């Protein structure tokens, strides 16, 4: 190389520049010795792969999972979730009382809870935040999370103007009382969602109207939060840095000095960053790398069940799919075990119902698996019964999915299974995300790919999307009895057992009607550096950042 450079130099005056440039770049390149994770561990700085650039850090506007991760480091709700069991744990409130009719909650705030600017966190901060969350012009897509509260929905719809009629009451600066319209077992879980975090009114109003979307209050230097960390730096598309909040009531227990979130939307690149020691934690693991980590570096691979269902929607308004027998035949011709084990290969569970198993103790009806399990003969019989012997006259059926590799894999595999077991032709149509959403909403499809990730751990969250007038139903399927179970009988349930029984009846009706084709239950998968202590995967894939710490581990011997 050097020799060639010299001869160029003789020939061309720019050769000198060339040499200098290349040499400079090379020298600069070769000098970097220490891995970023190592210096990070030493300094208590956690390098965290976080999938994408957050749209916003306003807890009532941001609605993506990556945003939620950052927000949970910055804020704290009244009640938190235990990082393993997801049971309610004290957070902004040190304790609370629930009335006998389970409709009134009284929260006692910590007297030592402070905003990141040192001011005390008061009950009014919660009340005002919830008022803001219920203003439609803010465009908060999670406002529905407040609807269990008395009159919250009516206020949001504009049916009442007076917020004092909504069931949130400030008893004294450290006591907040909430009245629900009916007993809601999962209400404590909702308090950990960004939409219900307290907000610092003065700092928001300093930067414009309280309900302005385009406000800059949530930018570095402006943002005031009450969590274990505070926003230190936000470089667009590069990094977001949060630093330990010295005013946090439990600051002594927070081990990390900083967390740096990287927008790693390309998982292939992210995995290479992890392998090259640039990240402590990866948001995802490319499917093709699973085998390598599972066999060579199992300690760094964390795969856990995730509260999400992957399914297909049947458009029941289409004549060829209007017959439930056809839908059932299609559902029974899919070998889910082969799909999850051979194609997806990331520990996903075959699903035979809408709700993931063990959703806060709830299990889908026991007969679900037997009803939908892989049985080509039964599927063919059903199809013949419906008037399509050997698939004749049915199809081609189009599967619509949004452009993404994993969805394509599933669709291709299912396409082949239907052809093989039912002699039904399927065509594949992929559309870019927004186009796909538009098509699905207009009902201009036969079968679409879909998924639902639980907001909180409760089966109702999975079943309510199938209500007749739910915007998320989109299949044209409507069962008044299902609606009645969910809307009228369920709220009146007096015990957990009765509640689960009602949910099971509702889910059974859903599986009888079958507007959906359950496929699998999600898993979350991450690469976690050995130095990272205190991390445990949970069903909501939600880490508790204040519990994490970095401790140098002796390098493992490579096998």
């Amino acid at each position: 190389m050097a020799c060639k450079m010299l001869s160029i130099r003789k020939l061309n005056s720019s050769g000198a520049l060339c040499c200098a440039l290349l040499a400079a770049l090379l020298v600069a390149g070769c000098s970097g010795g220490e891995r970023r994770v190592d210096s990070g561990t030493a300094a208590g700085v956690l390098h965290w792969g976080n999938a994408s650039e957050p749209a916003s850090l306003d807890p009532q506007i941001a609605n993506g999972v990556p945003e939620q991760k950052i927000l949970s480091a910055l804020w704290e709700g009244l009640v938190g979730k235990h990082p393993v069991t997801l049971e309610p744990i004290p957070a902004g409130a040190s304790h609370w009382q629930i009335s006998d009719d389970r409709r009134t909650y009284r929260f006692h705030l910590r007297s030592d809870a402070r905003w990141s600017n040192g001011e005390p966190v008061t009950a009014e901060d919660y009340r005002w935040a919830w008022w803001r969350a219920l203003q439609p012009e803010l465009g908060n897509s999670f406002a529905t999370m407040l609807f269990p509260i008395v009159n919250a929905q009516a206020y949001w719809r504009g049916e009442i103007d007076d917020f004092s009629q909504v069931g949130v009451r400030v008893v004294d600066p450290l006591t907040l009382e909430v009245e629900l319209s009916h007993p809601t077992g999962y209400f404590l879980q909702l308090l950990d969602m960004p939409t219900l975090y307290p907000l610092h009114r003065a700092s928001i109003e300093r930067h414009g109207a309280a309900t302005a979307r385009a406000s800059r209050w949530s930018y570095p230097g402006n943002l005031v939060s009450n969590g274990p960390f505070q926003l230190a730096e936000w470089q667009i598309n590069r990094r977001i840095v949060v630093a330990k909040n010295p005013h946090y009531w439990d600051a002594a227990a927070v081990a990390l000095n900083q967390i740096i979130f990287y927008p790693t939307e390309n998982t292939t690149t992210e995995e290479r960053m992890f392998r090259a020691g640039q990240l402590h934690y990866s948001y995802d693991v490319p499917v093709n790398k699973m085998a390598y980590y599972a066999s060579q570096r199992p300690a760094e691979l964390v795969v856990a069940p995730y509260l999400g269902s992957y399914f297909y929607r049947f458009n029941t308004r289409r004549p060829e799919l209007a017959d439930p027998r056809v839908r059932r035949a299609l559902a029974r011709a899919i070998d889910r075990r082969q799909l999850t084990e051979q194609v997806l290969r990331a520990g996903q569970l075959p699903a035979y119902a809408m709700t993931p198993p063990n959703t806060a103790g709830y299990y889908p009806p026991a007969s679900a698996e037997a009803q939908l399990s892989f049985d080509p003969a039964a599927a063919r019989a059903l199809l013949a019964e419906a008037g399509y012997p050997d698939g004749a006259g049915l199809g081609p059926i189009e599967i619509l999915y949004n452009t993404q590799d994993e969805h394509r894999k599933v669709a291709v595999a299912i396409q082949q299974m239907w052809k093989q077991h039912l002699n039904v032709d399927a065509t594949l149509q992929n559309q870019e995300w927004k186009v796909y959403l538009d098509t699905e909403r207009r009902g201009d499809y036969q079968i679409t790919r879909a998924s639902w990730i639980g907001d909180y751990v409760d089966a109702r969250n999975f079943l309510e999307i199938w209500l007749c007038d739910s915007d998320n139903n989109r299949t044209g399927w409507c069962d008044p009895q299902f609606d009645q179970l969910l809307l009228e009988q369920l709220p009146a349930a007096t015990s957990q057992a009765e509640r689960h029984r009602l949910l099971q009846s509702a889910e059974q009706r859903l599986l009888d009607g079958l507007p959906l084709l359950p496929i699998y239950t999600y898993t979350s998968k991450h690469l976690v550096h050995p130095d990272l202590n205190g991390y445990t995967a949970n069903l909501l894939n939600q880490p508790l950042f204040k519990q994490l710490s970095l401790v140098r581990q002796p390098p493992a011997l490579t096998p």
Partner: protein
Amino acid sequence: MARRVTYNLPLLLLAAIALACLLAPWLSPYPPAAQQLLLGAQPPSVAHWLGTDIFGRDLLTRLLYGGRLSLLVGLTATAVALLIGVSWGAVAGYVGGRLDAVMMRIVDTLYALPFVIFVVLMMVVFGRSLLLLFIAIGAVEWLTMARIVRAQVRAIVHSDYIEAARCLGLSRWQIVTRHILPNCAGPIIVYTTLTIPSVMLLEAFLSFLGLGVQPPDASWGLLINQGVETMEEYPWLLLYPALALTATLLCLNLVGDRLRDRLEGSAVGGDR
């Protein structure tokens, strides 16, 4: 003599690749989309000469079918570019004067358009229709062709034999089609052979962004892009598609180069 052989080698290879792709349905024992999920990705073997992809599909088959698509995109888009570019350039060059000035100004202006960006936008917005892909790429590539043809036509129009043809009473159409265009054939052919590879690369680029052809169809660009993701686990999935694309592009470039050298050589007198 030796030069003729080297001249023909890329051309022969090109013909072989094109023929193999064209005859794919008869050459390959596997349907292109047939999966064997249980087989998964396997390295090259006797049954699957180039191995299989993660769905257990035969890579050689996919490569041949992918080649059809890639070549089709390359040829069709180039044909679109050729059609627009040659007519535009010929008219501007032959008529000359104000019309020429206006037409070439339009070309200059369009040069400054961020076409690739428009193509990206169109692919996002209107889905990945192949037809659109052809037209969009063709619409990007015709500008240079128009410039080349126009320059060539300007040079020929003023030559003596065109004057002679004009005196003999040939119509404009006859002069353009019989005398001028055939004399421009050289540069046109050369540029065409160089356009095809750049079109194929553009298609590969769109595939990388997820905006190329639709699965289960595959172009070489898409196969390469999928191969890149698994290059550590299944290197053959990257190697063979990359080889196919690179070899084809290389041959096209070589053929174009040789053609150009020969044309320029004969024009200048040549010192080769």
